[in-house]
C-alpha cells in the first residue's frame, strides 16, 4: 500500500515549553493515500507534534519535509497554502460568524472583489449535506452544539483539496452515526490519494480505518507499525508503557443491580420539567446510588436536560423535587447548595479558566461554595489537589501551571477533579471521557461505579453508547429534544434496543418509573 516516497517527513523534532519537554527527537512520516493514526496517552505530545508541523509553534530542533522539500511554516496560513489542512483538537472556529462563513472564510467565493454570499450559502449547504448535516447555514455557529461545531470544522477541512489532512480528535463528541459518516469520507479521500493524519483515543476507530500507527509516549517516539502487525493489546501497552490488566475488569465491577437501586429513596425527581425552545417537558427520577445514562443522537437535547437539573438554564415549566421537597433551581449556586455538580461538555468555554492554575481550577467550585471570605486553607488545597492529580494521573503533576498549558485530555481531568472534591450527591457528567485516553477513561469509569456504590447519584451523558450501557442502571433516551423512553438496564438491555428506542417514530412511555 505504502508508496516509496512519503509526502511528509518529520525528523528528530523537539519542542520544549517552559518546564516541559513536549517532544523529544520525534520522527514521523506520512504516505500519500494512507490513514495514519497517531496514538498516545493524554499529554504524550500528539497535538504538539501537529502544531509544530503546521507552524503554530516553532521547533527547537528537527526538520520537516513536504514532498522531499524542507519546509518551515510561519503559521497555519502558510501550511494551508502548502496543502496541509488541519482540524485542531479544540474546536477552533468562530462562534460569532455564520456556519457558512466558518466553512469558507479565507477562501470565500467571490464576484469581483466582493464576497458572493449567495454562492457561499449554497455551497455550504451542499457540503454539509454531504456529511449529512442539514442545518441553517446562515445561523451563527455559536448557537449550535459542540458536536455540530465539530462537524462544521471537519467540513471546512475536507473541502480544501489538500494533500495532507490532519484530524486531531475529530470524533471526540460525535455519535456513532457521525463517526461512520466521517469514516466513509476519510476512506473516500484516502482513495483519492490524500494522506490523512488521524488522532483519536477510540481504538475501534483506529482499527476500523488506520493503515499505519505511530505511538508517542511522554514526548518520545515509541515506534511505527502497520496496523495489521500491532494487535490492540500491544498497542495499549506501547502507549502506556506497561503491562495491561485493568482494562477489561470494568465490566465485572459494574455488576450492578438496577432493581435494588431504584427501590431506594429518590434523590432528585423532575416532574414535567422543561424549557420552551430547548427541551420538551420530561419526567425523570434519579435515586441515590443510581447511575442514569442519557442516550440520544447529536443535538437530541441531552446537554439541555443536564443544564436544567443544574440551573445553568432556568426551567420555565414543571417541578423539580430534591430530597422530597419541591425546589426551584434557578441558578448554579442553588444547585450547588443542594449538592448537585455539573461537569460541562465544553471545557474550554464553560469549564476551565485558562489563565488560572490547575490548583485554582480544581478548588474553584469548592471555594465558590464556601464564599470568598473563607479561603480553602493551603494545606487542605495541597492535600486535595495532590490526591486528585494522582488519582486521575493529571500530567504534568505540577499544580501551579496555568491550566491552558495542559493537553486537552488533562484539562478534562482537571474539570472532573473540580467537581469530585465538592463531594456532591448528584454528579452530572456531560461527556466526561471526551478526549481522554483509554487508561484514564477506564479509571474514570471505575470511579463512577465506585461513587455510585458509595451512594452518589450520577447523571451520565456520553456519545458512546457502550459506555452508557456499561455504567448505567437506567438509560433515558432522548430524541428531538424529548425524553422518549426510560429503560432499565437489566440483562435484556443492549445497544440494539436503545438504538431502536432512539429511532422508532412514536413516543414510548417509560418502562420503569411510571
Amino acid at each position, binding site marked *: 500500500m505504502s508508496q516509496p516516497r512519503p509526502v511528509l517527513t518529520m525528523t528528530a523534532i523537539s519542542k520544549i515549553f517552559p518546564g516541559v519537554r513536549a517532544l523529544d527527537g520525534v520522527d514521523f512520516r506520512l504516505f500519500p493515500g494512507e490513514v495514519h493514526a497517531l496514538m498516545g496517552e493524554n499529554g504524550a505530545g500528539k497535538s504538539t507534534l501537529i502544531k509544530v508541523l503546521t507552524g503554530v509553534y516553532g521547533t527547537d530542533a528537527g526538520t520537516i519535509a513536504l514532498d522531499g522539500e524542507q519546509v518551515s511554516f510561519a503559521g497555519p496560513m502558510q501550511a494551508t497554502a502548502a496543502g496541509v489542512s488541519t482540524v485542531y483538537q479544540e474546536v477552533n472556529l468562530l462562534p460569532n460568524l455564520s456556519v457558512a462563513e466558518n466553512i469558507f472564510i479565507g477562501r470565500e467565493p467571490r464576484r469581483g472583489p466582493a464576497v458572493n454570499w449567495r454562492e457561499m450559502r449554497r455551497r455550504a449547504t451542499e457540503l454539509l449535506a454531504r456529511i449529512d448535516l442539514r*442545518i441553517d447555514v446562515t445561523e451563527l455557529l455559536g448557537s*449550535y452544539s459542540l458536536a455540530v461545531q465539530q462537524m462544521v470544522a471537519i467540513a*471546512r477541512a475536507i473541502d480544501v483539496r489538500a494533500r495532507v489532512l490532519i484530524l486531531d480528535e475529530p470524533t471526540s463528541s460525535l455519535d456513532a452515526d457521525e463517526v461512520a459518516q466521517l469514516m466513509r469520507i476519510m476512506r473516500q479521500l484516502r482513495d483519492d490519494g490524500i494522506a490523512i493524519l488521524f488522532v483519536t483515543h477510540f481504538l475501534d476507530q483506529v482499527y476500523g480505518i488506520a493503515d499505519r500507527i505511530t505511538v508517542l509516549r511522554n514526548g518520545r517516539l515509541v515506534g511505527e507499525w502497520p496496523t495489521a502487525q500491532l494487535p490492540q493489546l500491544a498497542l495499549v501497552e506501547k502507549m502506556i508503557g506497561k503491562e495491561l490488566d485493568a482494562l477489561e475488569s470494568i465490566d465485572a465491577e459494574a455488576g450492578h443491580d438496577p432493581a435494588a437501586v431504584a427501590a431506594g429513596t429518590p434523590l432528585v425527581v423532575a416532574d414535567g420539567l422543561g424549557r420552551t425552545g430547548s427541551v420538551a417537558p420530561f419526567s425523570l427520577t434519579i435515586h441515590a446510588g443510581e447511575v442514569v445514562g442519557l442516550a440520544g443522537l447529536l443535538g437530541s437535547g441531552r446537554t439541555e436536560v443536564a443544564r436544567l437539573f443544574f440551573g445553568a438554564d432556568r426551567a420555565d415549566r414543571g417541578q423539580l423535587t430534591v430530597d422530597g421537597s419541591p425546589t426551584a433551581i434557578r441558578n448554579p449556586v442553588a444547585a450547588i447548595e443542594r449538592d448537585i455538580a455539573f461537569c460541562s461538555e465544553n471545557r474550554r468555554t464553560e469549564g476551565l479558566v485558562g489563565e488560572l492554575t490547575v490548583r485554582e481550577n480544581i478548588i474553584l467550585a469548592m471555594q465558590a461554595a464556601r464564599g470568598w471570605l473563607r479561603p480553602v486553607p493551603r494545606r487542605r488545597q495541597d492535600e486535595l489537589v495532590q490526591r486528585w492529580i494522582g488519582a486521575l494521573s493529571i500530567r504534568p503533576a505540577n499544580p501551579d501551571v496555568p491550566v491552558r498549558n495542559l493537553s486537552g485530555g488533562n484539562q478534562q481531568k482537571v474539570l472532573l477533579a473540580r467537581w469530585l472534591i465538592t463531594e456532591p450527591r448528584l454528579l452530572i457528567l456531560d461527556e466526561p471521557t471526551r478526549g481522554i485516553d483509554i487508561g484514564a477513561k477506564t479509571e474514570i469509569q471505575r470511579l463512577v461505579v465506585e461513587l455510585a456504590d458509595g451512594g452518589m447519584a450520577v447523571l451520565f451523558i456520553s456519545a458512546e453508547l457502550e459506555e452508557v450501557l456499561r455504567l448505567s442502571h437506567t438509560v433515558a433516551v432522548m430524541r428531538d429534544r424529548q425524553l422518549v423512553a426510560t429503560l432499565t438496564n437489566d440483562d435484556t438491555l443492549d445497544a440494539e434496543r436503545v438504538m431502536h428506542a432512539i429511532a422508532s417514530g412514536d413516543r414510548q412511555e417509560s418502562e420503569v418509573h411510571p
Partner: protein
Amino acid sequence: MTTTPLAARDAKAWWRVPQRHVPVLATLALLLVMYGIGVSQYTAFSNIQVIFNILIDNGFLLIVAVGMTFVILTGGIDLSVGSVVAMTAMVSASLLRSGLPPALVLVIALLIGPTLGFAMGCVIHFFDIQPFIVTLAGMFFARGLCTWISASSIPITDGFWTSMAQERIRIGENFVSVSVLITLVVVLVAAFVLAYTRLGRNVYAIGGNPQSALLMGLPVGRTKIAVYTISGLCSAIGGIVLSFYTLSGAPLIAVGMELDVIAAVVIGGTLLTGGSGYVFGTVLGVLVLGVIQTLITFDGSLNSWWTKIVIGALLFAFILLQRLVVLRKK
C-alpha cells in the same frame, strides 16, 4: 438513520428579524422616538436643517467612529484618534501657512494618520503589546506634535479650504456641506468593506477569537495592522474635515474625542470585546449623541453642570431602554 434532528428547524419566515439585527433596529427606533420628543417640545426642531446640521456638525466624528468600528470589531481599541485628528488639522494649517499648494498638503495630511496607525499596528502585532497602551502612547505623541508645531491655533486662509468649508450644497430650502458628502462616501465604503470583502470578514473573525482565526489560517497579523491603519486613515480624513469645519488647526481641539467616538460605536451596538457590530450602528450611535446635544442647546435653560448631568441622564435612559428592548426580544 440519517435523519438528524438538526434538520428539524422550521424554515425562516422572510419577515422575521434575525436576532443579530435586533439591537441595531432597537437603537434606530429609540433614536426616532428621541427625535420625536425634540420635535414635540421645540418648534424649530422640526426644520429639516436641524437634521442636516447634526450631520454637518458630526461629520468628522462619524468618519473617525467608522475607523474605530474596524478596530473595536477586532477587539482592539484606538485611543489616538482625537490627537491624530488634531494633528492632521494642525499639519494642514501649518503647511498651508507656509505656502504649500493645497493638493500637496492634502496628500501629506492624509498620509500622516495612516502611517502612525500602521506603526502602532505593527507594535501591537509584532511585540504583542496591549492596544490600549500603544495607542495611548500614540495619543501622547500626536498631541505632543500638535503643540510642538504651534502652541496656539493657526487660521487657514487658503482658497480651496475656504471654498470647501463654505460651499453649501442646496437641497431645497436647506443645505449640507461638502463634509457631509465625504462622510457619506466614507460610511458607504466602510460598510461595503466590512460586509463584502475578505479584509472585512477577517476583521470579524479576529474579533470572534484571534486564536481560532490564526488556526484557521487567516492573516491575523496583517488584518490587525490593517485596522489600525484604517483607523489612522479615517482619523486623517476626519482631521481634514475638521479643518474644513473650523478653518484652522488648533493644538487642543478634539481633546477627549476618543471617548465620544468609542461611546458612539458602543451605543451603536458594537461589542467592545469584538466580533459583532455594524457600521450602520455606528452611524446611529453618532446621531444619538448629536440629537442629545441638539436637544440640550435647544432647551437653552440648563447651566453648565446641569448640562453634564442631563447628558448623562439622557445617555442612561437611552442605553437602558436599548438594553430592555433587546432583552425583551430575547
